[in-house]
C-alpha cells in the first residue's frame, strides 16, 4: 500500500505569516492533487500537478511537484483567516485503476 505522509499535522499561525506544508512518499505517483476541507463539508479540489518539477500558483498558494514525482509542497504567502482548514494531498496511483492515495492531512488555523 502506498503511503503519503504530510507535515506538519497541525499549524497555528497569525494572519500575514507564510507557511509550507509537505507531502512525502517513497512511491511514485502519476500526478498529485491538493484538496482543502472545511468542517462539516467534503474536500474540495484546489489543484492538480502532473509533471515532475511542476509549479502551479493559485493566488497566494504555490504548489510544487517533486522532480521524482514522490513528493509535493504547498506554500501559502501572507496567510489569511479564510485559509483555515484541513489540507489534504492525494497521489494518483501509477497502475491499476489510478486510485487516489490520500495524505494524513494538515490542519491549518490562521488567527486574525
Amino acid at each position, binding site marked *: *500500500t502506498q503511503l*503519503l505522509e*504530510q507535515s506538519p*499535522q497541525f499549524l497555528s499561525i497569525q494572519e500575514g505569516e507564510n507557511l509550507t506544508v509537505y507531502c512525502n512518499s517513497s512511491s511514485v505517483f*502519476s*500526478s498529485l*492533487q491538493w484538496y482543502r476541507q472545511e468542517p*462539516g*463539508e*467534503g*474536500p*474540495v*479540489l484546489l489543484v*492538480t500537478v*502532473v509533471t515532475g518539477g511542476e509549479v502551479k500558483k493559485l493566488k497566494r498558494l504555490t504548489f510544487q511537484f517533486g522532480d521524482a514525482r514522490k513528493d509535493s509542497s504547498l506554500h501559502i504567502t501572507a496567510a489569511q483567516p479564510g485559509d483555515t482548514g484541513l489540507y*489534504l494531498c*492525494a497521489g*494518483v496511483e501509477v497502475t491499476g*485503476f*489510478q*486510485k*487516489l492515495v*490520500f*495524505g*494524513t*492531512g494538515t490542519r491549518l488555523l490562521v488567527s486574525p
Partner: protein
Amino acid sequence: DAGITQSPRHKVTETGTPVTLRCHQTENHRYMYWYRQDPGHGLRLIHYSYGVKDTDKGEVSDGYSVSRSKTEDFLLTLESATSSQTSVYFCAIRPSGSGYEQYFGPGTRLTVT
C-alpha cells in the same frame, strides 16, 4: 457543485445493526467511490465502482459491502455495525476524461454505540 448528495447526513446506530448509506449523483458519472475519514488517517478508500454492477474493494473494505444497480446511486452497507466503524463517510465521483480529480459529497457522520 458536482451534484452529489449523501443520505442520511447523520446517523446513530447500535452495534450489530445493519446500516445503509446512500450516495446519489445527477450527472451520470461512471466512477464512484466510498471513503471513510478518521483523525490521523486522511481519507481511506472502502470500495469503488466503475459502472453499473461493477465494483471493487479498496484498502479498508472488511465489514462493508456496496451495490450499484443504477448509474446514479452507489450504496454502502455495513452488514453488522461495529464501534470501529464510527466515522465520517464520503462519497466521491470522478468525471471521465478528467485528470483523475474527484468531487466529494457532503459526508455522512455515523456513530455506532
